[in-house]
């Protein structure tokens, strides 16, 4: 039996969850489901939905991200079922394993880029890097990404840009010198929309 709770019950928990999601406490921002469960309680998904509703007018939303290399799953928390779906089977991942972030619900205008400290060149270089890595099936040699970027950008900007993307968590680099999409790209970039738009751009 589901117990109905009043606004006052959630107010304290929503505040706690907002603090955990907004303020960076570890290497990455956001919070893991297991951490939220411990701090907010077992009904943390419902609390996050309440928070998501409060953030909507501010053009923000809470997102659930399962960071599994090569098979990440991202969903707005408003679409996440609170109880396991019937017949979902044992393969369904627990929401406690996911990480939750507050992200921009809409998108930024080019004129707003300066608020984030990014130049248009940086954004273009990041789009190219992500596009090439996706075109190569999830991993691409750093030298290939550099060669592609150097066609239009000076060498120093390419090197500095890639280091910045890696430091920020957009790209990762393994011991073999292969670049892959790291946690921040998974959390922030709608890869499907990006690839679709790249292919459709200027095609009619």
């Amino acid at each position, binding site marked *: 039996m589901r117990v109905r709770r009043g606004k006052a019950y959630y107010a304290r928990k929503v505040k706690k969850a907002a603090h955990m999601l907004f303020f960076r406490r570890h290497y990455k921002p956001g919070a893991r489901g297991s951490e939220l469960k411990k701090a907010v309680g077992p009904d943390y998904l419902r609390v996050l939905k309440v928070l998501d509703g409060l953030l909507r007018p501010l053009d923000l939303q809470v997102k659930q991200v399962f960071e599994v290399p090569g098979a990440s799953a991202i969903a707005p928390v408003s679409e996440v079922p609170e109880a396991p779906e019937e017949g979902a089977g044992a393969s369904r991942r627990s929401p406690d394993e996911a990480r939750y972030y507050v992200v921009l619900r809409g998108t930024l205008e080019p004129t707003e880029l300066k608020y984030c400290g990014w130049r248009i060149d940086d954004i273009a270089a990041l789009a190219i890097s992500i596009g*090439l890595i996706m075109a190569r099936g999830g991993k691409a040699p750093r030298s290939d990404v550099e060669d592609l970027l150097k066609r239009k950008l000076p060498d120093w900007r390419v090197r500095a840009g890639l280091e910045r993307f890696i430091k920020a968590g957009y790209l990762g680099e393994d011991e073999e010198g292969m670049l892959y999409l790291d946690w921040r790209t998974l959390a922030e970039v709608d890869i499907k929309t990006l690839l679709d738009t790249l292919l459709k751009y200027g095609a009619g």
Partner: protein
Amino acid sequence: MPGRARELKKAREALERVISSCEAVEAGRVEPFSIPVDELIRVVRELFPLWEKPEDLSRDARAIEAISGVIRAQSEWVKKRSTRLYRDPFLLEERIGGLSPEALAAIFLRAWHPVVELEQMTVLSLEEAARYWSELPYKGEKELEEAEVLPGAPIEVEEAGVLTEETQRALEELWEELRRRARGGSVRYWDFITADTYAETVRRAYLTSFLITYGYASLEVDPLSEEELILRPRRRPRTRPREKTTSVAIPITYEEWLEHAG
């Protein structure tokens, strides 16, 4: 029989080539379908009657395993192309190479929903910081001496910055131990350095810092707990760091040693 020895040598080299080309596929450097699996299987089959020694049979098994890895990669390749996220790589590369930076930035902005996070100083954290500062000892000689008075026997540390032959040997041994304990993966930093005595723990921590500085191992934050530090040995030392690097100071206090050793 030099003729037989030569034949065996060539056969071993052929098998190693099979293994390395298969490993290149698994590492993502080569497209899975650019490897002629039938041809590799034929080579392995032809060479098999030559093997008598256990190490040759073991190499043969490695080759078979590597080929099965290629087949697995091919299966993944097909699976990936049947998903919604698959886009023609040639078309995609062609397209991103031909777009202007302005167009690319505009496209990226349509798909970008940046994470919102805050960094803010609070009165509480300022109070805590002020308390910490007032309790922090001065760097004066007297205080340094006091700080270095450790419980138990005094600890001798090698000359800073100079690696003696003995230190080099100790490093090699520690690296070997790290690789053995990590078993191809990683080991928790505190589990690795903690020894029976505080002095030995400090010595291991000191030597481990050299392993990290000289590229024999990497020190990372455990992605699961995000708090624990883990050590990951490298197969061979790295001279030029590829990842972002940062300096980390890890205090090895007597109390912490007691906590981990207990």
